[in-house]
């Protein structure tokens, strides 16, 4: 064979390869979390973090909890959409499977080694982003599946993740092209279900249903008698709820009053049918016509997009400026700004008090929750570089930072599980 002296060329190529593929100068070593001994030992924190495309992981921290958490190096369950935060005991539930391609309800838990694991999936027959659900107990759950019937509420077992039947609300049909029961609100108080009844039409490029009569309706179903007890309606607003994995109802555990948020038509944001917080008082099956919180009293145009009620106080966000989800220009950017301030609103006086915590930008949708005397709030704030959880003591009015993530993505969900 005819040979050339190519040794030098080979060396040059090798050197180029080494240069190209050499390790980054950045330190790839995993940062150890320094546990904070003042944090409760008997609690496991479940943290959902997310990247810009909403993908991320679900992490469980028990002995390694701290006030500043770097999730790098910790085991996690990878999910394509990490919006989460619903749990029943030590079971976690979220909309859609881990790939976020299958519509339905996913169940996750913590294994013996303390890692979050995928435990089962109940698929919807519908292929749209519309599987609202409620886990009422370990054996009782409800969900909505349009393909199985818009006016039928599906029942499932949250432990076996099997469908167990359905409740037929076809008698409530108004003959509208789009009719649903429980598409955005499935609430349970005592032995009754409170479900949004939504009938209307939807233009091709609209996301929300437009009702023929500008009102909202809640159907009350008695699970003991298996009968529809009432359909209560109230005017002056439209569209109960917003996204399926972001419920806009809350049961005040102290007063047993049930609150709902409407968002109105988020496209046109009409002043006469603005976003409101409504109430069905304890023991009642009709809207409390004496009560409403109107977003116009606090900011407008805007919507109530978070809701938690505790001891006659409403905890929600109120933006510091007018906002529009559908606003022109760069869609979503202006709405998802650091403008959503957490507020406590007294249901009697309707006075809002801004809480001392970083404004949120609505990249997470989880509602606040009560645990061990404290109410926990999630915030992502780009300008302050904050992604974390704040806690507020409604008795002492003291606010403090529970933890913040350190360069670990946005926080998109948080649960506390008591071991």
């Amino acid at each position: 064979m005819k040979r050339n002296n190519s040794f030098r060329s080979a060396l040059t190529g090798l050197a180029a390869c080494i240069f190209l593929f050499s390790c980054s100068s950045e330190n790839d070593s995993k940062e150890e979390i320094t546990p904070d001994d003042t944090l409760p030992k008997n609690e496991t924190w479940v943290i959902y973090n997310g990247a810009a495309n909403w993908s991320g992981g679900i992490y469980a921290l028990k002995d390694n909890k701290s006030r500043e958490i770097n999730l790098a190096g910790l085991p996690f369950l990878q999910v394509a959409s990490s919006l989460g935060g619903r749990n029943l005991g030590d079971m976690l539930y979220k909309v859609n499977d881990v790939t976020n391609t299958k519509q339905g309800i996913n169940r996750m838990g913590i294994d013996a080694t303390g890692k979050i694991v995928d435990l089962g999936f109940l698929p919807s027959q519908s292929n749209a982003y519309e599987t609202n659900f409620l886990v009422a107990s370990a054996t009782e759950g409800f969900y909505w599946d349009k393909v199985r019937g818009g006016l039928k509420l599906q029942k499932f077992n949250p432990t076996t993740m099997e469908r167990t039947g359905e409740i037929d609300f076809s008698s409530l049909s108004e003959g509208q092209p789009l009719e649903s029961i429980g598409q955005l609100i499935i609430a349970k108080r005592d032995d009754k279900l409170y479900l949004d009844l939504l009938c209307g039409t939807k233009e091709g490029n609209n996301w929300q249903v437009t009702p023929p009569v500008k009102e909202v309706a809640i159907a009350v179903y008695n699970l003991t008698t298996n009968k529809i007890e009432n359909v209560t309606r109230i005017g002056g607003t439209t569209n109960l709820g917003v996204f399926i994995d972001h419920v806009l109802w809350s049961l005040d555990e102290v007063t047993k009053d049930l609150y709902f948020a409407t968002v109105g038509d988020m496209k046109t944001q009409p002043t006469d049918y603005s976003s409101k917080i409504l109430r069905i008082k304890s023991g009642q099956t009709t809207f409390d016509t004496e009560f409403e919180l109107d977003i116009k009293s606090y900011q407008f145009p805007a919507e109530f997009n978070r809701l938690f009620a505790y001891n006659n106080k409403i905890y929600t966000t109120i933006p510091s400026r007018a906002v529009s989800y559908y606003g022109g220009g760069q869609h979503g950017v202006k709405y998802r700004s650091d403008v959503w301030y957490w507020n406590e609103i007294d249901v009697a006086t309707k006075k809002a008090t801004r809480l001392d915590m970083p404004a949120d930008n609505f990249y997470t949708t989880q509602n606040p929750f009560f645990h061990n005397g404290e109410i926990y709030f999630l915030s992502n704030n780009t300008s302050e570089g904050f992604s974390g959880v704040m806690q507020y003591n409604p008795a002492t009015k003291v606010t403090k930072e529970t933890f913040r993530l350190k360069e670990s993505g946005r926080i998109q969900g948080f649960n506390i599980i008591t071991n």
Partner: protein
Amino acid sequence: MITRITFLFIALFGWCLAHACPVSINVQDKNGKPISGITLLINSKILAVSSSSGVVQLDLDEGNHSIELVKDNQTLLKEALVVTCGQKNHFTYHIPVYIEKSDKLNEVVIHNKSIKQEIEESPFSVSVIDFKKQYDKAGDVGDYLNRASGVKLRTDGNIGSAVQINLGGLQGKAVRIFKDGIPIELFGHGFSLGTIPLNMLDRVEIYKGVMPIYLASDALGGGINLVTRTSNKNFCEASYELVSFNTHRATVNFFLQNKNNFYGGINGTFNYSDNNYKVNVPIQNDAAVEEYSDVKRFHDMTRSKYVEAFIGLKDKTWADDLRFTLIYSDFYKQIQNDANMVNVYGKPFSYETNFTGMVHYKKRFFDDKLKVNLLTNYSHFNTKFIDTATVRYNWKGAIIAENMQPGEIRAGNNQHLHYDFVSSRLNAEYELSDYNFLEFSELYYYQRRKGSDPLGAVSVIENVDVLTIPATYQKNNLALAWRSLWQNTRLESILAAKFYQYQTEGFTTDNYGFAWKSSKNDQQFGYLGALKWQKESTLLKLSYEYATRLPDEFEIFGDARMVKENLDLNPEKSHNVNLNGQYTLTQANSSVTFSANLFYRKVKDIIFLQLDIPFNRYINYEKSNIKGLEIETNYIVNKWLTTGFNMTYQDIRRVGIEESAFKYLNDSRVPNIPYLFGNLWVNTTFTSIFNKTDQVNFTWNANYTHRFFLVPIPKSQEPGLFEPVKEFQTSLIIPKDGRLGQFSNDLGLYYHFADKKTTLSAECRNVGNVKLYDNFNVQRPGRSFHFKIVYQLF
């Protein structure tokens, strides 16, 4: 702009200069050194004497000639010379033992460089797949591109499904595809990587990272040029291929030319497939528990037709070649599932018809110093996208719900669109001297869309169907280059500047449902440099381009339905560097060629689809660095056995994340892009099986694609290349069944009859019936059988 091009075209059209079919002859010794003073006799007439560079330029009629090289009344060589107008007639004659004033001559070796060689020896990082000897092979062009070094094609299924190309770590719109230099989208889906059989093409040119001047375009990561099959002699060939899944493919290529150099021909192809291959999918029982079973796809039928008819004149005083082409194509496709093969559909379909007219003019001026090549076309498309069903299906094809809202895929579509396209490409090269050339190229592109969709985006206030408002998009790409040859052509350099400009106008809607027109324009400069050094068996190249990809109309305006507009969108930009090396070891009947390409890309302002509810939108978001290595070895063992392999590794990583929350993804691998893949092949040739002149070929091709992840993983938790995933639980991995990679084999057997007119082929693809995925969860066909006959009538 159209006026300007028309004027130029008319001017060139009337410019009648010398009648010529240019031929370039190089006379060199065995070391490649030019030999001067050699007298050239063509058809026994003395025509020229070789210059100091050993080069002779002359004009010859097309056809057979005899060439004689004479020195000191001694004939050094006498051979036949075939001149084919319309192709590069560059001939190099090597005289291995040439002794001045000697009467000894031991050996004469003649090399006529093929176009493939010429392109591959250009300073750019380029591969050429020559199909001239591949017309017996089954499948489409995509199958063969996938076997090329550094190229990864990803499909959503079988014939007619969407195909995405990854080239040098960049993919999607970053890689531009052309047919004869014209953007391929102007020819419709009937002519696409997923539908075109090899018999329609002469070759494919794959430009990695740095685009040649003649393909001036806003390509961020390179481009692929499909060169249509043509001929210089009368011929007619037909092929028919029968494939699994009720697939039928046929082609016809026909060419006639008379003595006055008037020619005409037809190239056509027809594809039909039920695409009913089996997939393993879940079907819900009454308890909503998913039970997996193998079912046949039932709504994926695809049918496409593509016919181009052309007439032309060659070798006239006023044109080297003038060709008029008319094209008709259509494409019908049923839609079986969504992009993740989760949601199943039973009714939606798309249909498209395309009419194109094209004029191609080539001419050399000023003693062949100026070469001009102009290609202009106009296309009209009608497209339908129909999704109005009110029923819903499961994977068994059974209806599971009725009286639903129209639309299985989204909220229904009854979309009819009409597109008008104008595209024009002008290439000119001027020879400043034997070693210096100026090259200019311009690509002009205009698109206008108008249509309707009563179920689509309608503005609330005026009740306007936004698709009825015309949307236009126009871009203009210019390139000017200086190409030089040094060291007796051993070294070649190119320096070029590029200019990109676009403007678009379309609809958008605000939060009150108003639809209004808005516009956007932008411009960008780019530049490139390339060097090539070649000596005997060694070829080295270094190339660099500051590349740009302009946002298109859809990225700017969206569809007013699922994707919102973003008028602040900027072009994507990238610094692309390639270092190529090739070395060949040769022996009497065997040779080994080693080639390697190191590449680097530094990309910014990557256009990224930001998912949100209810609308998504495109934003300039990411920066990434890409470092990659491609290696390939071709070993010709002997005249009946060849083998080889290639391997590509590309390390594509996010960099420069400034938002503190996302810094944990700095240096993470950009997800959902294969980063390690390769091919292995063995080809054998046996002759004289049943007859002295018949031939049998046997081929084995294997493809490997390493696993890759669907969503980003922090680098600190990234598993090693061949390690299992340990630190986290995931099913967002391709393939998600625990394999480290996907390995598939194809076998082929080809029999060439002694009459040289007929070929019979049998192939088995995916012999092991392995589950293959290019995209997450989207199952590709299992084992398939292909039978093909190619018959050359004349």
